[in-house]
């Protein structure tokens, strides 16, 4: 398959003392430079998958290849440099007492030279729009700002892939937009590959491609437009659908004429008008 930066081939994983598989015979590929959203209900296996991509778990069957390297104990440290992770809780990932110390922490651990480190800390913080906060204490920042610093810490290590594990779920709506916008800019400018693991549908809707996980298996995949056409099916999987899709569904049920489940708000308004109200 094309230019895959991550290949997951028939991977299974089971936690000790659990009768069900957390991941069962999962195969998927991530293309270099794409934005892939992985969605699924709580317990669908998406967090297990995230942990596996960062070598916190190893597959019990099958293979994971990241940037050409097989995921195994020997390669895990190289892989962790290629793939940076941003976690859910902004408060759980701060180690430094100031913003710049925090970003420097990862660089220090990878033995980056002092002068290079200073420059990288600054440029990374510039890229996420946090350069004016260098000496601020992290607990004075908003949730969105904290997550942007976490992203800066990750990109300072110059990864090829950035993995967001429910990275916006604890933020308020503005913080969420702030973080998603930062990621979008980074992806475009730096050519990063982005994987976002989420159950926020509006977030998934921004991706190039969506994979739906259910009970540890890949249920389906496609463009956001295609995925959200399945609206009732997604609801049955414990997922939701974006607002305009839901609105389309309710309008159709209420007897209004619509050609499809709309994904774009303006298109929905236009069609509602032309098929129902225009004289």
């Amino acid at each position: 398959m094309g230019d895959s930066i991550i290949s997951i081939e028939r991977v299974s994983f089971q936690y000790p003392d659990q009768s069900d598989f957390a991941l069962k015979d999962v195969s998927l590929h991530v293309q270099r430079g794409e934005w892939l959203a992985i969605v699924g209900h709580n317990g669908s296996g998406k967090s297990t998958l995230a942990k596996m991509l960062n070598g916190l778990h190893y597959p019990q069957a099958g293979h994971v290849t990241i940037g050409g390297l097989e995921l195994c104990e020997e390669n895990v440290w190289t892989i962790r440099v290629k793939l940076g992770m941003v976690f859910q809780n902004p408060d759980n990932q701060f180690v430094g007492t100031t913003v710049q110390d925090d970003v420097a922490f990862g660089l220090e651990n990878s033995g980056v030279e002092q002068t290079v480190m200073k420059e990288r800390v600054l440029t990374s913080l510039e890229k996420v729009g946090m350069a004016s906060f260098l000496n601020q204490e992290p607990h004075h920042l908003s949730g969105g700002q904290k997550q942007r610093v976490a992203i800066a810490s990750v990109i300072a290590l110059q990864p090829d892939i950035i993995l967001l594990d429910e990275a916006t779920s604890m933020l308020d709506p503005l913080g969420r937009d702030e973080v998603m916008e930062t990621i979008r800019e980074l992806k475009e400018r730096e050519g990063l590959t982005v994987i976002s693991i989420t159950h926020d549908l509006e977030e998934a809707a921004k991706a190039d491609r969506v994979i739906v996980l259910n009970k540890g298996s890949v249920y389906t995949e496609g463009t956001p437009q295609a995925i959200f056409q399945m609206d009732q099916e997604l609801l049955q999987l414990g997922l939701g659908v974006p607002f305009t899709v839901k609105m389309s569904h309710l309008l159709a049920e209420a007897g209004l004429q619509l050609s499809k489940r709309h994904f774009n708000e303006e298109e929905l308004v236009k069609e509602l008008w032309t098929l129902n109200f225009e004289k």
Partner: protein
Amino acid sequence: MDIKLREVEYRYAAGTPFERLAITDVSFHIPSGEYVAIIGHTGSGKSTVLQHLNVLLKPLKGEIEIGRRTIVAGRKEKNLKDVRRRVGIVFQFPEHQLFEETVEKDICFGPFNFGVPMEQAKKRAREAVQLVGLPESVLERSPFELSGGQMRRVAIAGVLAMKPDVLVLDEPTAGLDPRGRHDMMEMFSSLQKKNGLTCVLVTHSMEDAARYADRIVMMHKGRVYKTGTPHDIFRDRDSLTAIGLDVPETVRFQRLMEAQLGRPLSRLCLTPEELAEELSRMRRESL
């Protein structure tokens, strides 16, 4: 049980160089049995207000009436146990507070410490798991082997087992998947309607505030910016955007539709269901 705040002020680290004004001149009324949503941007003082509702924080100015009890700034308050039992707070990520070996023990911890005999506490635990939609078999299990959503329900059951009159919820659905979120919000709504609980919801979700609340309190920079019914609050988009909030998606969509139609709808719709119904009615009338 009514709660009334009158000109409440609170400062963190008062009297130190780090003193910071968190809320000031906060007055509002939570009538018994109502569902009140508190909305506001991060840092607007929502959480500080919330901690006053069962006197985890005491006002530095003003007073709070909680049922028959009045907490006055500067006065030593003793025996707050009853107030704390009657106002149950579900904090953000309440599952982080689970600690016991079994779900039953965890739920019993609260009531037992408030003096309920163990046998009765166990009975309450059984009722509470039912209220939050978990099977009774969960009582014997360790809370730590449950899923995130189930753990959250157990933690909420622990608060319900104290039989509070007022349930205070701080972002209770953060981190849950859409179905979990919906089920949990419906559960609180039914507790309010069927069991007569007063609900206070702190939320970032304008959709939830619009759908469930009887009354909304808008906070901004430590002050009450505006209070009113969801209709009052969401009719006025400018005052929301001025403080970094916005109308629910449904209202935004209604406005787009009105622009296209060239005239306003006959009423402001707060949920997608209402809006679909209204548009369908309009279409029938225009035929």
